């Protein structure tokens, strides 16, 4: 690879918020045409750093050099004018506007100073989408109708609609299927070929190996390593740098079920459960102590099955039985009363009360237990919440902590603690490690396995095949809303699952 010129230098960037020093003298150097990966645990300062780069935060101290000249990024607009575009994890599109309107939001092509030239915007948007390999997205469509992957393409088209020289991507692959990730990487490759630099943030080390050129690792607001070669730095070195300790990135061993439990009656039985247009009738059983995994692509019906079992979606056929008792269909309350708990895919949107403390998040499903005639005994409530979060080693060990300040892994533990407290018998886990650091994942896996060992029946959904294979006892492989294969996890490997998942058309 030819030596490339330095495009951006950030040196000694410091940024404090009340009570926290988010960035403590970070250096970052990005060269034109490279994919520079930014790694770090949640709270390491990645988000703050890219917000400084996007002009959304003003650094307290430090210098930024852009193309060899000092630069001040005093607003998002100023950053954009220099050619820095940021694609945030939570996409910032306006759902009610069309694709073209979103692409040119804030810099619409106009005539006479204010009349929007809608047709020109549509043509140019179509050209950008074609350049991104997605000519099928209609610029006239409303963004709200698009899939998450398509919305990301629109976000990228918006970035490219400026004269962009650096694109920051914050976990762009989090919501994407493997083939969509491939397409994303193709786009990134074509951008770098045009000398555009990419700052790429991801928790997935294998992606960084595939497309990254160099890696900067952040920890506690400092860059602990800069410019490491992405392809050759050993994984355990990177993990050690991120966590500051050596971490065994492994799954807990499967323990043989204690005598008498191996052939225990299933606690969760699903018979012929179906939802028209989403998934075909499915049968499954989960025994106490067992972890059953659902593997499949986004859109294969994984999450939909979980939410239908839980009653959050109403089944069009079939039934769900917990310990021999059939559940009223379409009722979350019936499912919860029967002992089912759900840790949903979108933790912040579907599970957590972000304004509230850990205690109140944990206790929300068991309030009647610490209350008499509607009066909450707050001492008992807090003690119960603290006991439950301690068994999961939730950090920090203070039930008054606002839940929004926790890391992804600890937020997930707060959700699990809610169901533990409820004494639930069946745990439905939808993408339990999404947004969770590499270091914290192993811990979460151990927690899940321990809960199963203590007698819970666990139904797990994950888009990461190794996670399903490593954690589950039995795996159901889904394709387009149908179970195409069921096997013990030890009889499957990643290639076999991926083959099954993507194999031809549904009808042989």
């Amino acid at each position, binding site marked *: 690879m030819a030596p490339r010129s330095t495009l951006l230098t950030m040196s000694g960037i410091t940024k404090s*918020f*009340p009570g926290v020093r988010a960035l403590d003298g970070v250096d970052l150097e990005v060269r034109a045409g490279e994919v520079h990966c930014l790694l770090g645990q949640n709270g390491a300062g990645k988000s703050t750093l890219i917000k400084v780069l996007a002009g959304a935060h003003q650094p307290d101290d430090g210098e930024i050099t852009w193309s060899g000249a000092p630069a001040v990024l005093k607003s998002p607009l100023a950053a954009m004018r220099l050619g820095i575009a940021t694609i945030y994890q939570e996409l910032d599109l306006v759902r009610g506007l069309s694709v073209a309107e979103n692409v040119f939001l804030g810099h619409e092509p106009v005539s006479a100073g204010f009349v929007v030239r809608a047709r020109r915007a549509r043509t140019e948007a179509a050209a950008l989408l074609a350049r991104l390999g997605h000519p099928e997205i209609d610029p006239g469509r409303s963004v709200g109708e698009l899939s998450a992957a398509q919305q990301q393409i629109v976000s990228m088209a918006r970035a490219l609609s400026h004269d962009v020289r650096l694109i920051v991507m914050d976990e762009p692959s989090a919501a994407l299927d493997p083939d969509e990730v491939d397409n994303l990487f193709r786009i990134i490759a074509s951008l770098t070929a045009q000398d555009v630099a990419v700052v790429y943030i991801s928790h997935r080390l294998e992606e960084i190996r595939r497309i990254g050129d160099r890696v900067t690792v952040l920890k506690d607001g400092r860059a602990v390593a800069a410019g490491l070669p992405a392809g050759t730095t050993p994984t355990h070195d990177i993990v050690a740098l991120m966590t500051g300790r050596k971490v065994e990135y492994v799954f807990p061993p499967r323990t043989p079920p204690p005598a008498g439990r191996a052939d225990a009656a299933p606690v969760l039985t699903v018979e012929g459960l179906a939802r028209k247009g989403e998934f075909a009738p499915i049968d499954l059983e989960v025994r106490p102590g067992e972890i059953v995994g659902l593997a499949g692509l986004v859109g294969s019906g994984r999450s939909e099955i979980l939410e239908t079992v*839980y009653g*959050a979606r109403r089944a069009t056929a079939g039934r769900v039985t917990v310990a021999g008792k059939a559940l009223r269909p379409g009722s*979350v*309350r019936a*499912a*919860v*009363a029967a002992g089912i708990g*759900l840790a*949903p895919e979108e933790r912040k*949107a*579907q*599970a*957590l*009360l*972000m*304004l*509230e403390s850990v205690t*109140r998040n944990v*206790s*929300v*499903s*068991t*309030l*009647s*237990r*610490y*209350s*008499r005639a*509607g*009066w*909450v*005994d*707050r001492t*008992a409530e807090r*003690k*119960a919440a603290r*006991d*439950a979060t*301690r*068994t*999961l*080693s939730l950090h*920090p*060990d*203070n*039930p*008054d902590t606002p839940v*929004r300040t926790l890391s992804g892994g600890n937020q997930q533990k707060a959700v699990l*603690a*809610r169901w*533990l*407290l409820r*004494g*639930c018998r069946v745990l439905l886990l939808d993408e339990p490690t999404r947004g969770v650091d590499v270091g914290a994942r192993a811990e979460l896996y151990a927690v899940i396995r321990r*809960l199963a060992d*203590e*007698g819970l029946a666990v139904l797990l959904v994950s888009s990461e095949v190794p996670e399903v294979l490593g954690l589950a006892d039995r795996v159901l492989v889904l394709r387009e809303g149908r179970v195409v294969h069921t096997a013990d996890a030890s009889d499957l490997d990643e290639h076999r699952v991926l083959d099954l998942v993507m194999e031809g058309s549904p009808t042989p």
Partner: protein
Amino acid sequence: MTHPVPTAQSGPDQGPAPVVLKKYGPRRALRVDLHTLSLLGILAVLVAVGGITEPDAFLDTGNLQLVLTQASVIGVVTVGVTLVITSGGIDLSVGAMVALASVWASTLATQEYGFAGILFTAVLVGLVAGLVNGVLIAYGRVVPFIATLAMLASARGLALMITDGKTQIVTVTSVLDLGLPDSYVLGIPPLVLIFAAVTAAGWLLLNRTTFGRRTIAIGGNAEAARLAGIDVRRQRLYLYLLSGLCCGIAAFMLIILSGSGQNTAGNLYELDAIAAAIIGGTLLSGGRGTITGSVLGVLIFTTITNIFALNNLQSDVQQIAKGAIIVAAVLVQSRTSRTET
């Protein structure tokens, strides 16, 4: 009071031993937050202004009793509205519900049943109107803004139909007596006592009961609350019922205060109540609510009105001052919430 610790598998001995036992911060109940302090500060400044500009008239016992009495009617309405807003909803129909309840409770036919008839009718009308709001919003899936806007229009219309635009004089002396100084308890008007009782009930409901927790939960994240097993719809229904109940009580208080029922009663109460709740610190988007703040908001507004009236300033100046206070309070709020995240 002891409670069994409800743990299926959460005994601390089963998990890894906690490394450090952290001391907890000051108890929430004892902590007066910055926002409440600033509201108290504003109120103190207003009282000082009143005391300096009109020392005799403002600090007169009768005047202070009047200010508190006026604050009481809108205050009771504001307690209900605060609960609704905390749940992420809105109730635009409170003023119209007060009007409808006050005219229905003061018809000649109702007055024949005396004190009990008037009180019962006012409360019942408020509850029924609140029930209609609640059913439409919780089970009919009508947006709260639209459902209560429709209630605003139709309740006012019905009130006009009942009175034919005439003021209905109340002649039941046992009701009217409650407004006279003879019935004051230790110098405190009965209406103020009702307000205090409703405030205390609202505060306890929001801060100490499962009902309050669920209200905050659905206001903070309705989807998460539903997936946590909370009956979101029933909770919404109860909240609009409560708002209607508060309006019924306020209508009864208004009859005592004015000695009559009018279809124009409670005009623009919705604006005053929502504004008081917002400057008090309740989030319009839901998930955070404060009864204390709302009450302080009401007292601030009523004190301003009183000072302006004593200084012979026109009501247009009053409105401008109120508007400025709302903007200032919301600006302060968004500053503080920004530094929190």
